[in-house]
């Protein structure tokens, strides 16, 4: 038995108080009125009897209360629980040391305490015992095979550091389960060294350990934690003087009970500090920091938002990679020269988009040249004839090479005058439009809400497609392979998709000018126009960052430069991790790379000398919530699964403070003090009541 604060034993001096109280017969202030003192006055007053202690039970209660109070304040604890000591008389044991190396173990001195606990466990191995060291975060890895060689185990510990992953207990238990199941030693034991973060356990049943397994825990969780983290960044792009700028907003969270004032937040772009701001964050609250807009340089920009240091530095840096060109360039061909412009609604709808933004260029058919297709994400033929001649062939090539084409068939899009190549891009279209003015217009009768265009409208009350009225539209006949995305209420096709080469052609069988229908006047027009344009342009949100544990899909990252050999899966890549570790990825099985480190990964095709693709990787911020789960809950789940006679859970801690916190004897002592004081009150009241007071 040891004590955290033995100085509080000085409080035992207070024992003198009850001794004096019980020795001294203090005369009561209230006088007892008695009928006659004729007998009492005859009895001699014996002052010497004052020296005797009265009411021994009351005296004992008071002394015990004081002693227990002093003990409670002295914070007693047992140095080493008896059950935790290795039992050598019951045969050899198979010990699996599960060492948590999630990045939260970087908090304070947790890691050094964890290593010390593991070393103690290794030192406690008996001659015939065996042990395995398993490290785990998102995944579990056996650092050693089961061995009785303490040197091997200790060497495996050397050089280990917390990783960048989040905590997951299940893989660790599964690996321990497998190791223990393969063991033939009579005793099986698991030592779980962890900070027992709540995020690591979802409350479901853990894998059951073999019957008879003992689970010991080293709980490294701190009773009070403080952590500030950058949880993400938002980008707002704009274009000024044809230059793309980005304004970055960082989101911060303070996961502690204390407010943080004057915390410095720095934005770094390409390794250079651009701006530093001071921020105040209330306790258990979030805050945002807006940085001034900066022009984006060419290529990929590596950005980091850094916070000042705290006990957990891993989540103080947030990495991202952004590049120019996120705006979709759209060419609108608005009929021939001299015709009335009919792209007003469409232009306005696209111009107000910001995720992505659209850079719309409108031209008449006669002024379009082949160079206008270059760099375009989308060409929009709005109620226009198809270009003929060489321009038409360039348009087909543009689509086949991955360009997007959206065709709106209004009254000016005369099907009978289509050039020969048109059948490659467009479905057959009837010359005469279908007139629904007699029945006050048709409506959309079917929408493929599983399609990426309409997927966002699949939730209830998101997009009212019943309101738009369609007075005229063209009847189109789909070819095999064409996909009907929307139909009118009479069954005619409203929107059709055709894949041409690597590009997409979308055909809208009515106009977008508000003449053949009132769709542009309906609220749903704006989002549906954006969705159709994004899909036709094959726009995919660029992920500015990934999370540790995710996988980078290399063909997707290099899709804009993929060649014939790449499509066959023969491309080779080189991945350089933030730590500088270089990995060559070859063959069909190496089309992805697991992101296990925080920072910037550089990915490059083998042999290429171009600029590498950059993938920013951040830690899983769920791990920055340091709330701990009761270790007994976690191991209790295993106990329940493993059978009633299988485990005895023993709590072991590494420091006196931790031992005392886990054992918590002072609670029991204070409870005993409370009971003693209640007893003292009752007893003293009873003794007081024995004095009958006359009226």
């Amino acid at each position, binding site marked *: 038995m040891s004590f955290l604060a033995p100085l509080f034993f000085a409080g035992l001096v207070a024992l003198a108080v009850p001794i004096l109280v019980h020795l001294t017969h203090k*005369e009561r202030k209230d006088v007892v009125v*008695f009928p006659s003192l004729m007998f009492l006055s005859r009895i001699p007053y*014996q002052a010497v009897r004052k020296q005797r202690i009265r009411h021994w039970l009351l005296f004992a209660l008071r002394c015990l209360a004081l002693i227990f109070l002093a003990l409670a304040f002295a914070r007693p604890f047992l140095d080493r629980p008896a059950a935790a000591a290795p039992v050598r008389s019951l045969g050899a044991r198979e010990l699996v040391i599960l060492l948590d190396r999630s990045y939260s173990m970087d908090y304070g001195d947790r890691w050094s305490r964890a290593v010390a606990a593991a070393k103690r466990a290794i030192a406690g191995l008996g001659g015939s015992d065996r042990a395995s060291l398993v490290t785990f975060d998102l995944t579990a890895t056996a650092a050693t095979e089961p061995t009785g060689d303490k040197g091997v185990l200790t060497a495996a510990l050397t050089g280990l550091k917390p990783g960048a992953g989040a905590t997951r207990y299940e893989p660790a238990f599964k690996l321990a389960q497998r190791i223990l199941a393969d063991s033939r030693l009579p005793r099986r034991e698991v030592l779980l060294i962890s900070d027992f973060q709540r995020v690591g356990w979802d409350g479901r049943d853990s894998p059951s350990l073999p019957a008879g397994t003992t689970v010991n825990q080293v709980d490294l969780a701190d009773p009070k934690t403080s952590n500030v983290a950058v949880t993400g960044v938002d980008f707002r792009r704009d274009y000024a003087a044809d230059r793309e700028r980005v304004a970055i907003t960082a989101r911060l969270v303070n996961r502690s009970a204390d407010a943080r004032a004057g915390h410095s937040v720095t934005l770094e772009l390409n390794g250079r500090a651009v701006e530093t701001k001071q921020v105040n964050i209330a306790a258990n609250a979030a805050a945002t920091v807006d940085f001034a807009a900066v022009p984006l340089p060419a290529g990929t920009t590596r950005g980091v938002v850094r916070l000042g240091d705290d006990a957990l530095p891993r989540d103080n840096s947030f990495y991202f990679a952004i590049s120019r060109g996120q705006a979709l360039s759209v060419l609108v061909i608005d009929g021939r020269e001299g015709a009335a412009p009919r792209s007003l609604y469409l232009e306005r709808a696209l111009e107000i988009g910001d995720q992505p933004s659209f850079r719309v260029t409108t031209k008449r058919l006669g002024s379009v040249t082949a160079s206008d297709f270059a760099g375009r994400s989308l060409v929009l033929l709005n109620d226009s004839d198809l270009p003929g001649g060489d321009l038409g062939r360039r348009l087909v090539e543009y689509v086949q090479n991955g360009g997007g084409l959206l065709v709106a068939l209004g009254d000016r899009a005369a099907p009978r005058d289509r050039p020969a190549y048109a059948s490659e891009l467009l479905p057959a279209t009837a010359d005469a439009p279908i007139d629904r003015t007699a029945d006050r217009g048709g409506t959309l009768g079917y929408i493929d809400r599983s399609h990426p265009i309409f997927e966002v409208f699949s939730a209830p009350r998101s997009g009212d497609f019943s309101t738009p009225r369609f007075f005229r539209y063209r009847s189109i006949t789909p070819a095999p392979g064409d996909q009907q995305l929307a139909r009118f209420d009479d069954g005619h096709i409203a929107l059709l998709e055709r894949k041409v080469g690597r590009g997409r052609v979308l055909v809208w069988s009515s106009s977008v000018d508000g003449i053949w229908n009132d769709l542009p006047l309906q609220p749903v027009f704006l989002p549906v126009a954006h969705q159709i344009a994004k899909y036709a342009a094959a726009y995919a949100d660029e992920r500015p960052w990934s999370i540790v544990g995710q996988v980078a899909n290399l063909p997707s990252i290099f899709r804009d430069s993929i060649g014939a050999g790449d499509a066959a899966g023969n491309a080779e890549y080189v991945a350089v991790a933030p730590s500088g570790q270089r990995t060559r990825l070859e063959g069909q099985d190496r089309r992805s790379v697991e992101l296990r480190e925080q920072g910037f990964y550089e990915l490059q095709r083998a042999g290429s000398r171009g600029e590498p693709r950059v993938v920013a990787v951040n830690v899983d911020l769920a791990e920055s919530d340091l709330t701990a789960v009761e270790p007994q809950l976690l191991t209790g789940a295993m106990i329940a699964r493993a059978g009633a006679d299988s485990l005895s859970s023993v709590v072991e801690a590494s420091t006196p403070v931790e031992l005392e916190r886990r054992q918590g004897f002072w609670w029991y002592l204070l409870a005993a003090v409370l009971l003693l004081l209640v007893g003292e009150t009752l007893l003293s009241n009873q003794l007081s009541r024995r004095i009958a007071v006359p009226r």
Partner: protein
Amino acid sequence: MTSNPLPGLQFLDPAVLARIGNLELVARTVVEGFLGGLHRSPHLGTSIDFAEHRAYMPGDDIRRIDWRLYGRVDRYYIKEYEADTNTNFNVLLDVSKSMSFGSAAVTKLDYARTLAACLSYFANQQRDRVGLITWDEDIVEIVPPSAKHLPNVLHALARATPQGPGNIERVFRKLAEQFKRRSMLLVISDFYEDPAKILDAFAQLRGRGNDLMAMHLLDTAELEFPYDGATSFEDIETGERIPVIPEYLRDQYRTMIRAHTERIEKLCGDQGVDYWMFNTSMPLDYALFAFLSRRQFLTRVR
């Protein structure tokens, strides 16, 4: 507390009766209830018995002529009965300050007041003349004995207020002059006097042919001395204070109070004075039973 001598009469709790307030109601309730409890007792039944016939004399009430006898002998005869109201019943109640003591709900004076009311009521029912004398160091109030004075007695009992020290010797010497006629005297007191002085006082009255009974009332606290903790005790009559550690004195005190009561009892026995010591926590029927036993004895010997 002694066990109840008459099963079924557990309702004569002094604390309950003290809350009634109306002494006549209390007395009637207690006495009638008590007599109901004694209904089968062979020792009771002192009624007005026929004594003799005597010849009619002019001046006699013609309502007393035995007309049935006249029918047989053709002479006027008057029926005479055993004397019916020939006893005075006097209660000599100590109202000194010490009687105001009570460790529970009932003080000694409350208990004595109720006891005196009950016994007076009972005596009045028996056609005795009832009277009351309250005293402390002197005579406080006198209600002369009369068959019609029960209400006066009850009123005097109700307004009796404890005050002043007691002096039984002096009072009883003065009282000896009051009783011209043979009386039954019931002294109710806590008798905080030297037993010899008490007996001297009794002797003053006993010598006049009075039948004397003494009821010694003491509170439980006076008998048991259950106090704890060092404190000062103040004499309720004199105001004198002395420091006391009760737990050390308790045994001696008990011994002394027991010796005191035993001494009084012995001396009373020697003098032919009936003596009872009552704890005020005892039910009233215990005291009533003691009294009636005495009455039954007196009837038999008369």
